[in-house]
């Protein structure tokens, strides 16, 4: 049993743990602290928790000011608001000057399934990835989310992490990922070996890629390599080249638009490498309401079946 039931729970609890070790850690929410779980921090460290009300732009710039006095602010809201509504504030003051502000895009992707397109983020990674010098993180489970938050607290500079709202399969064990590892940003974990096709996935879709790999082996005898790409930017080109050198084709899978997310990052990095790439992701559409998360993911083709089909299709090109 993992330490945290969801990524957002990992966010709230990890910040409390970090807050005990470092009194520079502050948390800001925009009246969504119950959802982001940032509000848990307020109970432990009320003086370092800033409820900013429904005003994300002000929240982002206030975080800039706090960082200028030596604090390490973690700013949280839904991914769609914190990257969209407060984009300019993040870009102009925080990113240009490289301020030490950590941004948490909570309820990322379609994970806030009930609330529909206004609350679901299909382009948060695209926005953050376009920012020069930005670090964009997309953990695959709650344990990795916690490790990434610990990394964010110790490493200087602006960073973005996308956090899922719902429970998701555990892929890592507590303590398996070392946030102090010097090559932390070069992490790209091969979770399953295979030499026919590489399934490069991020976030919720990593567990789906593992499932797809099992199906490909059982049904077709295809050996799929499954890789968790959780550092979306800077994407480690050398590591990527090493990972794909022995496969014939590549499939990317993400709970994000195929424009500007993991698929784009992989294709950009491999643009001089003649390997076909199929992208599983949201196909240039907005989200929509559904009664359940699984149902919604399925309707957007974010399933093991879709990854399996994409692998067969792209391998047939060979």
């Amino acid at each position: 049993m993992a330490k945290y039931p969801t990524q957002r729970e990992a966010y709230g609890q990890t910040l409390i743990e970090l807050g005990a070790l470092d009194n520079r850690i502050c948390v800001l929410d925009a009246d969504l602290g119950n959802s982001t779980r940032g509000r848990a921090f307020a109970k432990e460290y009320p003086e370092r928790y800033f409820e900013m009300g429904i005003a994300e732009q002000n929240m982002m710039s206030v975080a800039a000011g706090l960082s200028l006095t030596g604090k390490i602010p973690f700013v949280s809201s839904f991914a769609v608001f914190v990257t969209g509504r407060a984009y300019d504030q993040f870009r102009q003051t925080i990113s240009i000057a490289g301020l030490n502000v950590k941004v948490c895009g909570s309820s990322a992707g379609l994970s806030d399934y009930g609330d529909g397109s206004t609350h679901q983020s299909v382009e948060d990674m695209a926005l953050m990835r376009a920012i020069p010098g930005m670090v964009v993180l997309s953990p695959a489970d709650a344990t990795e989310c916690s490790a990434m938050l610990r990394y964010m607290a110790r490493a200087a500079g602006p960073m973005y992490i996308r956090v899922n709202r719902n429970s998701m399969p555990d892929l890592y064990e507590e303590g398996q990922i070392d946030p102090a590892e010097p090559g932390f940003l070069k992490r790209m974990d091969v979770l399953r070996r295979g030499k026919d096709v590489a399934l490069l996935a991020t976030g919720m879709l990593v567990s789906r890629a593992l499932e797809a790999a099992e199906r490909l082996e059982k049904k077709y005898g295809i050996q799929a390599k499954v890789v968790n790409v959780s550092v979306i930017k800077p994407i480690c080109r050398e590591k990527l080249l090493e990972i794909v050198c022995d496969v014939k084709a590549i499939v990317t899978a993400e709970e994000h638009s195929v424009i500007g997310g993991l698929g784009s990052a992989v294709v950009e990095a491999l643009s001089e490498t003649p390997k076909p790439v199929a992208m599983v992701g949201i196909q240039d559409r907005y989200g929509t309401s559904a009664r359940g998360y699984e149902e919604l993911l399925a309707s957007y083709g974010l399933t093991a079946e879709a990854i399996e089909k994409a692998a067969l299709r792209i391998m047939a090109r060979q």
Partner: protein
Amino acid sequence: MKASETAVQTLRERALRIRMRIVDLVGIGRAGHLGGSCSLADIMAALYFYKMRLKKEDPKWPGRDRLILSKGHAALCQYAALCELGILDESLLDKVKMLGSPLQGHPDMTKCPGIEANTGSLGQGLSIALGMALGLRLDGGEQRVYCILGDGELNEGQVWEAAMAAAHYKTQNLTAIVDRNGVQATGPVAEIMDVGDVAAKFAAFGWNTIEIDGHDMVQILDGLEQAEAETARPSVIIAYTTKGKGVDFAEGKAAYHNGTLDAAQFQAAKDSILRNA
């Protein structure tokens, strides 16, 4: 503490030299924000040469008061003041906006000493200043944070988010100064987007409000004292000013918000500043 008549006179001379340097920074034949820089010169002189605790030999001294120029387009006024103070080298003034220069078109803390935050995208500085005020207060510091806004800038909604939040958090260590020169980039504020009774608006949000003539040094100093004396709320000083103050042909004119001077106008601007001093 009341400033002596000599101190006031010295500050007036500082403001004069800041204005002369602003004209140098605008230069000949290239666009520069003359109007909104000149309207601020007296306030800037009062802050840098009287009110703010600073160590010019150590611009990053942690005990310093902070100034956020939210109306970042008035960077020329801040560069002029920092040069007058000795934090910026005189020789840099020739290099404003030149490729690779620390003197960017808008203030850049990563390139220019004495700049506290990157501003220029309007409406954000008051929030940054609020974050600083909260951070400094958290550490039990005595430092004050000053934030200069334009009146056209008050069009931006984020200013009012910050106004609400600063009142909510009762940041007594925060003073906003509105350069109420009445003219924004393309015309009079009252015509482009009327900001109305600025003092009443801030007062409604819960701020201590002070109204002054932003070119009267005694009133500026009094206003800053009153703001510092406030212990329960943030303060705002509405400083009524003239855009392009001192350069008679540019006064009150939107054309000189980011205008260009030819050689004759450059000289005329300097003559006018000396004449009006």
